[in-house]
């Protein structure tokens, strides 16, 4: 494995006043190796977007550390923080509201360069044109158009070009394809794969769509109610989930195949309120395997196979995992 680019330790984010405190992210730890794509998947309210935002310090973490290339971002402030942040860029879900409708595509992409005085004149123009061409927007024909004149898919391409302008090491993608039609979604996913190879990017890909996350990720982390349940190589985790929640989540995923057997039972009920999360394991109130220990003791992440960690006192049988197809 390559060296670690991003290291997150015991990251917690809580919102609201004492007494009505929402624990959105609770003691989440993971590493992302240079050149790797880590998928972060979970249902709404599980804290996946808040985790992404806390890494950028768009929301302030209440505890924990975020280390990018050996520099602790949670300790940095002011100009030092802003400078470090150029190495990490974020792309958001709604491509249209991410761009100022009254600005031209070319100026939107040039903005980060202007902010940091990275390029001027002819060089600035060359960099911007190259970026636009790379994301599939013809700079000559469309560079002068206003953001409002582009479709959702095209706006997402411009957002990607803008994010790449600073040559970031880490790209955080928060639900970047969920607002797009399936045919356009495939274009953007393929584009991200290509750019990742070309720029040697490391990605944190946050999404709720299990098929999309598997498609783009090397490793996948599953969150439930603010905590990490399971993390492991994408193919292994999908073939042989060790956490009961992961199994239910995958069982509920719909496959576009009429011959596909209806998989597994459906998870009953809905996640409890993060205002008052269950003690111990947060999934225990809906877990069919929950025992007394689950209520009293918070399960820590532990390794069940090389690179595959799970936070569960009673992970699903190893035997089944080994028998599963690779």
């Amino acid at each position: 494995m390559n060296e670690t680019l991003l290291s997150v330790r015991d990251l917690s984010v809580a919102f609201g006043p004492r007494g009505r405190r929402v624990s959105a992210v609770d003691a989440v730890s993971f590493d992302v190796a240079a050149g790797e794509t880590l998928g972060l998947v979970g249902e709404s309210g599980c804290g996946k977007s808040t985790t992404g935002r806390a890494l950028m310090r768009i929301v302030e973490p209440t505890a924990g550390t975020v280390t990018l290339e050996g520099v602790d971002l949670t300790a940095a402030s002011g100009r030092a923080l802003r400078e470090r942040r150029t190495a990490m860029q974020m792309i958001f879900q709604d491509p249209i509201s991410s761009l100022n409708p009254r600005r031209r595509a070319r100026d939107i992409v040039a903005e980060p360069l202007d902010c940091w005085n990275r390029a001027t004149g002819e060089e600035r123009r060359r960099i911007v044109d190259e970026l636009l061409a790379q994301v599939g927007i013809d700079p000559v024909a469309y560079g002068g158009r206003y953001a409002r004149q582009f479709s959702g898919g095209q706006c997402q391409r411009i957002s990607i070009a803008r994010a790449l302008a600073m040559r970031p090491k880490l790209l955080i993608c928060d639900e970047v394809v969920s607002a797009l039609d399936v045919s356009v979604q495939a274009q953007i996913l393929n584009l991200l794969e290509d750019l990742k190879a070309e720029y040697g990017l490391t990605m944190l890909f946050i999404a709720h769509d299990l098929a999309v996350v598997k498609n783009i990720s090397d490793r996948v982390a599953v969150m439930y109610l603010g905590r990490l349940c399971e993390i492991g190589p994408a193919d292994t985790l999908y073939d042989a989930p060790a956490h009961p929640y992961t199994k239910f989540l995958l069982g509920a995923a719909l496959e576009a195949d009429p011959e596909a057997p209806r998989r597994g039972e459906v998870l009953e009920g809905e996640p409890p309120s993060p205002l008052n999360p269950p003690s111990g394991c947060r999934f225990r109130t809906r877990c069919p395997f929950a025992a007394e220990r689950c209520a009293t003791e918070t399960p820590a992440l532990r390794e069940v196979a090389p690179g595959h960690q799970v936070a569960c006192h009673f992970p699903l049988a190893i035997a089944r995992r080994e028998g599963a197809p690779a």
Partner: protein
Amino acid sequence: MSDETLLRVREVTTTFDTPQGRLTAVDAVSFDLGAHESLGVVGESGSGKTVLSRTIMGLQPRRGVSVTGSVLLNGIEVVGATEEAKRELWGRQVAMVFQDPMTSLNPVVKVGKQIDEVLRVRLGMDRAAARARAIELLEMVGIPAAATRYDAYPHSLSGGMRQRVVIAIALAGSPQLLLADEPTTGLDVTIQAQILNLLDEVQGRLGMSMILVTHDLGVVATRTSRLVVMYAGRVVETGTTRDVFARHRMPYTRALLESSPKVSNPSHTRLAAIPGRPPNLLDLPAGCAFAPRCAYATDRCRNERPVLEPAGEPGHLFACFNPLSEPVGSPT
């Protein structure tokens, strides 16, 4: 397929007058729906699937919209029906479940009262009977502590629970046809599975027909018996769900299937993306609307509009001049 036809849609065309000109959202769509049958209508944004379902309901703004063709529901013509006649249909013959359960419910009326309204106005029940029936319906759609939730306001319910309430309202008049327009879009995957199972179950239990309108092929794959694939307002392929998935002839259908990532594929599987994007309905090409994005398009495709023709299997039709060849042996 069923023997009895509940809904007969013939050459339905819905146009809107916009400041930029006349826009044809639904273009000469025809299909039949049998009693107890479930039909999936799939397409991307702008394909006309939502306008089609609203046209079947007879839900149109009064100005700037014109509908031609015929929608016969149980022998009653919906196109051109008076508001009064349509009100007779709504609830009792046909009911609709919309995508966004928050905006489908009145935020300042208790959910039980919103179900009551259907029962009292449509079915003429008295207050006590309506309340009892409303609680029964809430139980049927799987809302725990239904008697207490009767007095809840929509904002205190989760998205999944709200969609259950919307379904209860739709079922209140015991309609013969349930139109569900993206009923699970915006819901989490585990909640989506719950709602789709619920729709399946009530459809079977009440013997309704259902039209499931969605952009997600996964939603219709195992839950409908027939499919209509739409592109730029037109039906481009239709047939049994199995035939459309396994023996599709229209390149767009294949592109749609192949561009969506699948949970069963290994990670980093290259997606077969369709170049370009869905066309602007105000500026449609003269021929096949998919031609500009199609790898097989010829001059004929660009100039002449293909009509639906039989593919071989019963009820399987496609509109394409250069159809994909029939698969040899088992489909992959």
